[in-house]
């Protein structure tokens, strides 16, 4: 199998799994209990917290563990929105048009509850303009939430600049960094963020665990209530094994970042060139420079992405598509719409996301397999004409 869907999820690395293992059956204590077994669990958790903090330049006590990127986004956005709105500070939120549903749906739920939300455009490049942000800010703005890197087209947003503006205007700033952490350098102080979301399974940790960076003295209204764990914000018996896995994944990511970036970038560029050169009417969606090292989002005129992904699957290649046909609600990806693609063009998208375990031979195979599949699908397509 050639796995090129790393933005969807990644396997748990062997090294990560080995570190997690003892916490299932041996050091299985409840981290909130104070006898030895509980203390072992607690120690594992706190080491993990340190590893997460180090990866993003934060302090340990600025990290809380959550059940994943989605929960992190919800805790951050709802938490700031309710806290500041209750304090009479305003009801306006600024976000982008290409956020992950965990942010987008949270914002739209808040809209229904009386908040006002501005969705910044991203243009053909898939990148927000700082000027647009500036003009969107008003007296009532309490929160800016803009992702670091997009999960579909991989474009990287000008987070540091946005953070600076947020700070100048005394507006809280959250960034969903689920796709960027561990892939490119992320430093909460350089980026000027107050809150930042992380998900473990995107960086070779286990699914169902994540983290939220909360800058010191940033107060949130809780949305979940319980036994007080994780600063009362993500209560419940701690998923110790998962947390330890996330910690180890962060430690490894930090260690290997400098090596991975050029390696992955190189594979990606080779794959892009190989396909664009051999398939006519093939394009890249979104800015090609300001993009995650491993992200490719192709667009092939005249074919539909779900059939393309299925045919690649049959050849043992895993990728994904933003085609309406592959979505639960049969609507085209809001990201592809936001960069201006018509429905018929967004149908033809193929996302391949490369990880450090992909090889040059795999890239060669993919470059060989895609063109005949595209040709086959085009030959049966009712809208393809040479």
């Amino acid at each position, binding site marked *: 199998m050639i796995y090129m869907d790393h933005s969807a999820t990644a396997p748990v690395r062997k090294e990560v799994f080995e570190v997690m293992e003892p916490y299932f059956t041996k050091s299985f204590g409840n981290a909130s209990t104070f006898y030895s077994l509980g203390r072992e669990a607690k120690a594992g958790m706190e080491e993990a917290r340190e590893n997460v903090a180090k990866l993003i330049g934060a302090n340990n006590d600025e990290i809380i563990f959550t059940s994943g990127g989605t929960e992190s986004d919800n805790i951050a956005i709802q938490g700031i929105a309710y806290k500041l709105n209750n304090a009479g500070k305003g009801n306006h939120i600024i976000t982008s048009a290409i956020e992950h549903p965990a942010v987008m749906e949270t914002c739209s739920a808040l809209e229904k509850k009386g908040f006002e939300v501005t969705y910044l455009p991203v243009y053909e490049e898939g990148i927000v303009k700082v000027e647009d942000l500036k003009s969107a800010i008003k007296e009532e703005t309490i929160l800016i939430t803009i992702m670091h890197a997009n999960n579909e087209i991989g474009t990287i947003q000008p987070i540091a600049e946005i953070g600076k503006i947020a700070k100048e205007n005394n507006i809280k700033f959250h960034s969903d960094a689920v796709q960027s952490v561990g892939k490119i350098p992320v430093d909460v102080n350089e980026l000027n963020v107050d809150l930042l979301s992380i998900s473990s399974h995107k960086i070779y940790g286990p699914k169902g665990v994540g983290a939220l960076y909360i800058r010191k003295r940033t107060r949130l209204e809780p949305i979940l209530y319980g036994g007080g764990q994780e600063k009362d914000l993500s209560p419940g018996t701690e998923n110790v094994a998962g947390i330890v896995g996330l910690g180890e994944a962060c430690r490894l990511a930090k260690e290997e970042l400098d090596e991975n970036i050029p390696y992955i970038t190189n594979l990606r560029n080779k794959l892009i060139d190989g396909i664009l050169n051999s398939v006519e009417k093939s394009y890249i969606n979104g800015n090609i420079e300001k993009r995650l090292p491993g992200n490719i989002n192709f667009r092939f005129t005249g074919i*539909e992405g779900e*059939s393309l992904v299925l045919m690649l699957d049959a050849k043992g290649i895993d990728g994904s598509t933003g085609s309406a046909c*592959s979505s*639960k609600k*049969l609507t085209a990806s809001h990201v592809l719409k936001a960069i201006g693609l018509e429905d018929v063009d967004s149908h033809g998208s193929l996302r391949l996301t490369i990880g450090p375990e992909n090889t040059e031979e795999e890239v060669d195979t993919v470059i060989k397999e895609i063109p005949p599949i595209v040709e086959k699908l085009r030959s*049966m397509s009712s*809208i393809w004409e040479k």
Partner: protein
Amino acid sequence: MYSEKVMDHFTNPRNVGEIENPDGEGTVGNPTCGDMMTIYIKVKDDKIDDIKFKTFGCGAAIATSSMITELAKGKTVDEAYAISRDDVADSLDGLPKVKMHCSNLAADALQKAIEDYRSKNN
């Protein structure tokens, strides 16, 4: 997600292509999910003598197109006209729920082609 039959018709679609100077031609498209299919027919002695399709769409869209060409071939025009969406889905051992309406347009395309044939021959 898809039945084996769907996957079979998707990977080895039957009767792909166009017919030059067809006796009837029908194109349908669904605005929500955006699939587009065209069915071409040749009629001889009131029977579907030849049938071909071209489809832009998902696995289900391609499989239903392929399946209807098999179901229709050799049938009388009236019999072919009576093939329903459910007949197509059943012959494929079912389709995923979300795809039942969106990608299951092949019966409509064939009916349109037959209507085109009938209007030309009246």
